[in-house]
């Protein structure tokens, strides 16, 4: 219940934060909303020597349209994503996903950047971020670089972020015409984390042909991934229930699912298929303008 002592810094500018982070290296942890880090610290599974609180940084909590994309500041709480009218209209997948994270209180504090940088294997956002082919902006004292979502997640709790880099913004594309998206999730009954979470983004043309499809899967393995085999099986085909179901069955291909108290690897594998199909069905229906 009580974290170990640490040295606290609350920089007021990103530059200051980057300098501090560079100086303290892996002895420092960044504190955004704290909904992942603080529980670990309270259990003393994490005991960083330095905590750099990003809460006083300005300009990192925003959702705005920029150069044909939507830019979301890393410090934007999940609740603001969930309730954003802009996102609801132009990137509803993120809204639907944010609404599935934790509970109201966690969504009020937890941030998009914090969640992505923590890279919990059962977090919700990564599925959507992958399905959207989002871009992740990372700043360091030597400048800012853009990381493609597909490159971002490396392993459990590990991302492409280098020592000293701070995730500053996420850019997601605006929903293309004739495109439907959906996030379907099987909750772990105690913690609410995803046993399996599937985000689907499907573009269907007037004749019912799937022009583009992207499927992000979280919870199944140590890191979130794109269900490439399923996407391949769908791309260019005319949508029908059997097609979706067959493609969904390949959702866990090449992945060795995790196993825990709540779901064995075999069950997780099966649920990946079920929830991929459900997400695809819902996304396709939305793409076709049906209620789902």
């Amino acid at each position, binding site marked *: *219940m*009580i*974290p*170990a*002592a*640490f*040295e*606290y810094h*609350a920089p007021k500018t990103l530059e200051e934060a980057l300098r501090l982070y560079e100086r303290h290296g892996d002895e420092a942890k960044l*504190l955004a909303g*704290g*909904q992942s880090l*603080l*529980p670990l*610290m*309270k*259990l003393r599974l994490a005991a960083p020597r330095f*905590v750099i*609180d990003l*809460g006083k940084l300005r300009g990192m909590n925003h959702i705005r349209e920029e150069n044909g994309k939507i830019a979301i500041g890393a410090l934007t709480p999940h*609740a603001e994503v969930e309730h954003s009218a802009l996102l609801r209209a132009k990137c509803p997948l993120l809204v639907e996903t944010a609404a599935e994270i*934790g*509970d*109201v*209180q*966690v969504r*009020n*504090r937890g941030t998009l950047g914090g969640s992505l940088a923590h890279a919990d294997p059962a977090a919700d956002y990564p599925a959507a971020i992958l399905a959207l082919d989002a871009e992740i902006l990372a700043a360091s004292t030597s400048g800012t670089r853009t990381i493609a979502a597909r490159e971002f997640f490396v392993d459990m709790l590990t991302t492409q972020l280098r020592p000293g880099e701070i995730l500053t913004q996420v850019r997601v594309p605006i929903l293309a015409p004739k495109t439907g998206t959906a996030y379907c999730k099987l909750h772990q009954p*105690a*913690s*609410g984390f995803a046993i399996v979470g599937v985000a689907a983004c499907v573009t269907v043309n007037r004749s019912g042909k799937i022009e583009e499809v992207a499927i992000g899967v979280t919870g199944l393995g140590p890191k979130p991934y794109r269900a490439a085999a399923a996407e391949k099986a769908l791309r260019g085909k005319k949508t029908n229930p059997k097609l979706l179901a067959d493609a969904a069955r390949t959702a866990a291909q090449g992945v060795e699912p995790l196993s825990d108290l709540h779901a064995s690897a075999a069950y997780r594998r099966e649920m990946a298929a079920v929830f991929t199909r459900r997400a695809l069905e819902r996304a396709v229906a939305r793409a076709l303008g049906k209620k789902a």
Partner: protein
Amino acid sequence: MAVDIQVRINGKPHDSKVEPRLLLVHYLRDTLGLTGTHVGCETTLCGACTVLVDSKAVKSCTMLAVQADGAEVTTIEGLAGAPEAGGKLHPVQEGFWEKHGLQCGYCTPGMILASVELLRGNAEPSEAEIRRALAGNLCRCTGYQNIIEAVRYAGKKMKGRKR
């Protein structure tokens, strides 16, 4: 080592020097003596410690006191001062009393504050909306049913007052 913070709590400013690792809930309870906010777990899952920070429900066990620097915090003790309450019992408090929305009372302050946030955005929530909004608050006594009744009661009351 200690950090200076300024926090408005229940409308009153507080200037304190705190150890950075001090949790907001311990700051409220141990430093300020506001013991109405309870602690029920250490994994951010029970919601007993829910308070409003800048009008948003948060779990005060998963926030450092230093993170509340510059913020406005409302605890159960200060709810009577909320705009909807006007110095009396808040409609949500009233609802919990009227509808027997509590038994042992331990989860109650957190439940009430989570409900306040819900009703400020939606005075007529459906049963499903209430259940979802209270997903972050555990109660082991009531089976939640009377809590739902309490929130509905309060919502009606708040809507009536707005008119």
